[in-house]
């Protein structure tokens, strides 16, 4: 924790530098982050409305928020999975903590998400349900998702560096998770005996909570949220342990 404070400057300026260099690379960069969930939402809405018969603005918005939360999650994890590997030459020369670049990549992706999410949020509240007091839950939900992302990234970035095959497995796991996280369907469609398993997935719980708070204007299910918090904290603790254990061992174990 102390070292995190020491390195916050690096993390901050690297995120800033990343944004700058991205802006110089392609001007459509930020726009894409809004367009991408819109496109995939349109696609999912089109196919799902034909299968389930559910139509209308509610369904579309429901998919949209599932999609955008998912993309923040998946994008950050996929990006940070190879963070340590791609900066290995730096770690070979300077004694930086290995968690540095995974966190930088999460930060950069989170700024992109924040831009897109704010736009989508404002637009959908004004055309959809309108603002409500339930929105005060939103910062907590976002914070919780950020913790989950950070924890998983710490575990995955180090594991992938030690055993690169994990990255291939990861893609399959995320494809599975995409279908199991309730992005294009709601919890009511999950069979009752499968519901506990469905809710054990913190990203599914988060998506359900976002919908409750933004679209249905009521507080999220606290039991569900508590469970998701515990899972996220456990993953974060595991990540901190793994990073700490391998930090000064990594270069003796692999040449990447």
């Amino acid at each position, binding site marked *: 924790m102390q070292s995190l404070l020491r390195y916050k*400057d690096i993390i901050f*300026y*690297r995120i800033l*530098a990343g944004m700058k*260099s991205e802006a110089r690379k392609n001007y459509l960069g930020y726009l894409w982050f809004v367009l991408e969930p819109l496109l995939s939402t349109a696609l999912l809405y089109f196919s799902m409305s034909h299968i389930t018969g559910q139509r209308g603005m509610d369904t579309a918005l429901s998919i949209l928020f599932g999609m955008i939360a998912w993309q923040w999650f998946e994008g950050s994890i996929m990006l940070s999975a190879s963070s340590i590997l791609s900066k290995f030459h730096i*770690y070979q*020369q*300077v004694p930086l903590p290995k968690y540095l670049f995974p966190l930088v990549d999460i930060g950069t992706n989170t700024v992109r998400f924040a831009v897109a999410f704010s736009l989508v949020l404002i637009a959908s509240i004004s055309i959809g349900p309108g603002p409500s007091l339930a929105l005060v839950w939103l910062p907590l939900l976002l914070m919780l998702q950020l913790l989950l992302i950070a924890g998983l990234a710490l575990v995955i970035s180090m594991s992938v560096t030690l055993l690169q095959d994990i990255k291939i497995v990861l893609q399959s796991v995320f494809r599975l998770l995409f279908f199991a996280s309730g992005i294009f369907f709601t919890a009511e469609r999950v069979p009752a005996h499968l519901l506990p398993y469905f809710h054990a997935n913190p990203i599914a719980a988060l998506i359900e909570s976002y919908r409750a708070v933004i679209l249905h204007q009521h507080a999220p299910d606290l039991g569900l949220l508590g469970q998701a918090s515990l899972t996220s904290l456990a993953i974060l603790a595991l990540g901190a342990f793994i990073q700490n254990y391998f930090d*000064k061992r990594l*270069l003796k174990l692999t040449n990447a």
Partner: protein
Amino acid sequence: MPEPLIHLENTGIYYRSGRAKGPQGVITPWALRGLNMQIMRGEKLGIVGRNGCGKSTLLRLLAGIIMPDEGVIRYTRGNLHVQLLALGVGFESHLSGAENAVLSGLFMGKTRRHMESRLAEIQEFSELGDAFHRPVNTYSSGMNARLGFSIAIQTDPDVFLIDEILGVGDRGFLVKSQQILRDKFKDDTTVVLISHDARIISEVCSRAVWMEKGRVLAEGLPRDVCTAYEDSMLAKK
């Protein structure tokens, strides 16, 4: 009485071999073993040895990048800044030379303020002129190396770890960069120089260590150690 900055006590390090080399758990020989060494404030320590004698491992250990598998390494001050002379660490190709100088300095443990106060010196030493404020992906490889060297030399660590005195750039800059490295040996910076060239070590160092297969073979005045090292090199031929 010189004050020690770093203690190595019976330090050993081994690398686990890749899985291609055998079943897991099989270990390659120790890269360093039973190393006892002290690095004193202000001294210029030269380490001489052949390829694979553990020099690079020792540098990584001193820089705090890896930890020992046995024995201990102790720094007498908690915030001791030990740094490897490294060129162009983590350059971001779309950012300017100046922006990269600050970023690179942050990596090497310096503050943003320190690096910003040195920007003029870096620009001047690197001879980049106006190009200093252009993105580094417009640089030639020579310009890149000049920038990297100029940044590294401005980071002022407490202990400077140098792997061979290599100049960079064209003829003119080569002489200049080698000169400023040699100047580092004249002021009160603590320097650890690693080289397989005994001549340069006896020229610039105040103490020398001869390493072979991860152990210290001889230690003392650079002249004596280097003579012994060179004699053994000749005897092998």
